[in-house]
């Protein structure tokens, strides 16, 4: 059970693709000016990442090692084609909000990165869990920044008008996206560092107490 907990926590926090590994930056910067498109992008990536992780992990003994990257790309491109048709038909406003970034999920480093680093070495169940948790980590990060940018940049949240008059227009442009993303990485890594340091101090203290007790 511990193994599954570790995979989940790694995907969500300790190896968060957006803040810790800084992968998939193009859609992040392009879509966080609106919370709706940021969250939509995140959920689309959850679906594609989970399916691609499951497929690649199931086929890991079949795919020859030398041509694995082209095989992964075909699998991912096929999934993106399916999801694109699905969204165009059923969720047209999300399809319009994502724009060109929907196609660019094919070359998103998170998906190919998880296939290469995780799915081709682990079982189907573990890979599926990794896909869901990494994707949700990405979604959470994007939605968080999307809310900041949309509230301060356009004075609205998920399209609902919150107030008039006070907006920082820069935060609704790519320049503001770069600024918010940079500051969020700095904040997140500082918090994680502080947490790890506190954990280490606690572990050291415990070890010292144990030693003293044994000595006594």
């Amino acid at each position, binding site marked *: 059970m511990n193994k599954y907990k570790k995979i989940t926590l790694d995907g969500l926090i300790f190896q968060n693709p957006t803040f810790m590994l*800084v992968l998939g930056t193009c859609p992040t910067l392009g879509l966080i000016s609106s919370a709706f498109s940021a969250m939509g992008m995140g959920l689309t990536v959850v679906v594609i990442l989970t399916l691609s992780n499951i497929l690649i992990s199931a086929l890991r003994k079949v795919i020859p090692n030398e041509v694995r990257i082209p095989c992964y790309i075909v699998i991912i*491109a096929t999934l993106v*084609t399916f999801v694109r048709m699905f969204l165009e038909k059923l969720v047209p406003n999300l399809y319009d909000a994502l724009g*060109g970034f929907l*196609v660019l999920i094919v*070359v998103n480093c998170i998906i190919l990165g998880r296939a290469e680093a995780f799915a081709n070495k682990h079982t189907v169940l573990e890979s599926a869990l990794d896909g869901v948790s990494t994707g949700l980590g990405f979604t959470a990060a994007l939605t968080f920044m999307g809310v900041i940018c949309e509230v301060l940049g356009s004075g609205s949240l998920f399209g609902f008008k919150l107030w008039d008059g006070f907006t920082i227009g820069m935060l609704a442009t790519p*320049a503001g996206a770069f600024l918010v993303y940079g500051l969020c990485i700095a904040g997140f890594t500082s918090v994680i560092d502080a947490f790890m340091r506190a954990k280490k101090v606690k572990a050291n203290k415990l070890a010292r107490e144990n030693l003293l007790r044994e000595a006594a």
Partner: protein
Amino acid sequence: MGTIIGIVLAAVLTQNFITAKTYGICPFLGVSKKTSSAVGMGIAVTIVMVLATLVTYPVYEYVMVPLGIDFLEIIFFIFIIASLVQMLEKIIQKLSPTLYNAMGIYLPLITTNCAVLGVTELVIGDMSSIIGTASMNIGWAALYALFSGLGFMFVMVIMSGMREKLNCYKVGKAIAGFPISMITACFICMAFMVFTYIQV
């Protein structure tokens, strides 16, 4: 003539791939530590963008649309780009080993660069905001790809210069690395926002 000026201005200044569209950010942040590597990456991306557009545009327009398989464009395009990059790598390796040593390491990275797939997708989409009333053809597509690549290189060179300068200063531990690069990029984007007022 007006169309050419419109394409050049849009691709390099007003709708620059990095500062306005945020395509190709991975190499922009990853390979911009030194000016020489930024130039190498920029040239490699430009060449691949032009070649990819020259292949994908006719394939889409004259093969896939008549056959009614245009929904398979993503799979076709990514395969064309991947094989082009592989081919280019082998050709450069054979023709000029010095160039290969200088540029070779950037080539494999380009396959998964969103700028290349992005430009091939953009030119088959609606381009009327850029080329106006002129009808789209392979010439405009290749010109747009060429100047988009040059605009990409332009911003990368500016960024690498700023990062080289930044190395001389001490920045706080919390914002060292990626955060300070992003804040630098934020200022470049703000500078480029001025160009959005250009009307052609």
